[in-house]
């Protein structure tokens, strides 16, 4: 954060989002925005790994999915209280993230990519096969609506939108403070100069494990709210293709920006919703659009926006994502 001015920009964005429902936007549009905010949080947590840590994970959906199922199960069987169900998702996802982080902390590059893919597919297999608990391939239905501590149900799109908004702001503040804290700086250091960082006495596996846990907790928080958008959760939320979608959203929005996750999620979801209503070949269109982005806007649309916002004091991100030409995964 470049000081007060970026705080100002953040406040303006938050204020604009806060008054959005007052402008008469239809309820189902607010639901879409809520979904964008939720997925944006998940993408932002992935940015900690990929952007700041240089750890390209193809298993992030496992944490998102575990958070989703844990919160849905907790709400159904224990209590639909928002302040209990969401933490249940966070705790479950953090535990899975800790195990996964501990298992992958010695790996790098493509080995890390495949190992996270394998481990997350194991999580998916468990969700998919454990029919009695998760509903298997049919997904999990009959989830009650979340309630506020007073007992008020979160049932309309507006309510859901505000909960997602609070989640997004909270997650952004956590992620931003992690990035700006010494551990965040050390993480970027391990990405850029692992040998030098080791020589300075940093333990790279420990740093990686902590970023994995923080990132999993945030992804779990996003996942925990996700089932309550449609009161349904299916096993595809934990599938590796979901991880790939999160990575695509991240790149569309811009790696290493944090807020780019929201832009990427917005572009992807709006695009998908609109194109799929016009043509059956929406995958083709989305694929072509994505290839065009990689070819012509490789830094992501979020970063280009960043550049445009420069006079406002948001400037270029301090850390560039693509510095190493030796072929290591960034």
């Amino acid at each position: 954060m470049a000081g007060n001015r970026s705080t100002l920009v953040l406040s303006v964005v938050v204020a604009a989002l806060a008054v959005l429902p007052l402008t008469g936007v239809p309820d189902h549009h607010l639901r879409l925005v809520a979904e964008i905010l939720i997925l944006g949080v998940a993408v932002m947590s992935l940015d900690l790994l990929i952007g700041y840590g240089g750890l390209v994970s193809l298993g992030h959906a496992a944490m998102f999915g575990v958070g989703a199922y844990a919160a849905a199960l907790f709400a159904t069987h224990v209590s639909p209280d928002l302040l209990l169900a969401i933490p249940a998702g966070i705790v479950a996802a953090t535990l899975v993230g800790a195990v996964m982080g501990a298992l992958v902390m010695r790996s790098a590059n493509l080995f890390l990519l495949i190992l996270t893919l394998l481990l997350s597919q194991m999580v998916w297999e468990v969700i998919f096969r454990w029919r009695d608990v998760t509903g298997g391939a049919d997904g999990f239905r009959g989830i009650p609506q979340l309630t506020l501590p007073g007992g008020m149900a979160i049932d309309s799109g507006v309510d859901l939108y505000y909960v997602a908004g609070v989640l997004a702001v909270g997650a952004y503040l956590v992620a931003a403070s992690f990035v700006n804290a010494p551990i965040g700086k050390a993480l970027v250091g391990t990405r850029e100069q692992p040998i030098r960082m080791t020589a300075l006495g940093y333990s790279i596996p420990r740093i990686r494990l902590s970023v994995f846990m923080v990132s999993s907790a945030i992804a779990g928080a996003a996942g925990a709210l996700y089932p309550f958008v449609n009161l349904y959760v299916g096993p595809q939320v934990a599938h590796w293709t979901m991880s790939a979608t999160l990575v695509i959203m991240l790149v569309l929005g811009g790696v290493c920006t944090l807020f780019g996750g929201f832009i990427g999620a917005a572009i992807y979801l709006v695009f998908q919703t609109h194109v799929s209503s016009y043509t059956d070949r929406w995958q083709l269109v989305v694929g072509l659009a994505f290839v065009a982005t990689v070819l012509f806007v490789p830094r992501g649309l979020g970063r280009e926006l960043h550049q445009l916002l420069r006079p406002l004091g948001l400037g270029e991100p301090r850390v560039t994502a693509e510095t190493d030409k030796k072929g290591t995964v960034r």
Partner: protein
Amino acid sequence: MEYYVIQSLNALVFAVILLLSGLGLSVVMSLMNFVNLTHGSLYLLGSYIAVFWMATGQPWYLAFPAAFLGGAAAGLILDRFPFQLFYARTHLMQVLLTYGLSVVFADLMRWGFGAHIATPQIPELLRGVVFILDTPFPIYRLFVLASGVVLAAGLWFLFDRTIWGAVVRACVVDTRIVEALGINTKHVFTAVLALSCGLGALSGALGSGILAAFPGLDEEILILAFIVVVVGGLGTFSGVAVSALVLGFTMTFAKMLSPEFSNLMSLAVMAGILIWRPDGLIAATRREV
């Protein structure tokens, strides 16, 4: 006893398909440092070419060269644009580009070939079964097994024992020195990519008689081949072979033990190998100067 022999043969056949599709991927990954996620699409393209070729009534054995040439031609085009722009980029950018392309190709093939499961008309000669220890075993599978072994041996010879292979391997170690010797490395890379894409399509043509061809198969094969290559140790020939065998046998026998948990077991075995050896089964020895 017979049962285990037959299952082992099945595992070998599956391992050969994994090996062939993995080798194509491995060649570009190790020799050109390029991650090509369109490899699964090329596999599926090869399967469709074989299916359509065998339906036309042309000599069946020409289906395989046709698939190879089709894949290689696709590779030549892709090399021109856009792969060449990405050879020097980071793996992440390569992964993103080729993943996006594979989504495009998957939808194009669904559009062109339909969403149904297409099976090739296997020629008379390969249709029956042979009796191994009094248990029937499809001849076609033996044919795949034999051709796979021959192809893999041929590839090994090409890269390990010929002057052309030496040039390619030299390009991996130091492109600029090879350039200084008067060899156009760009052409070498183009040839390697075309060969790899051709191999992908050829393995698809061979596999089509067993796995058929349908939308979604491209992704499945890509993931399996990718796992095989990375677990094997990124670009060592023997590594890919060993890891294809491990995955082939694990998947076949896990299915036998417990169909419910077979995928979980196979995933766990492959993940276990990567946790045990973070650089893959047989890591390439690299000399940093």
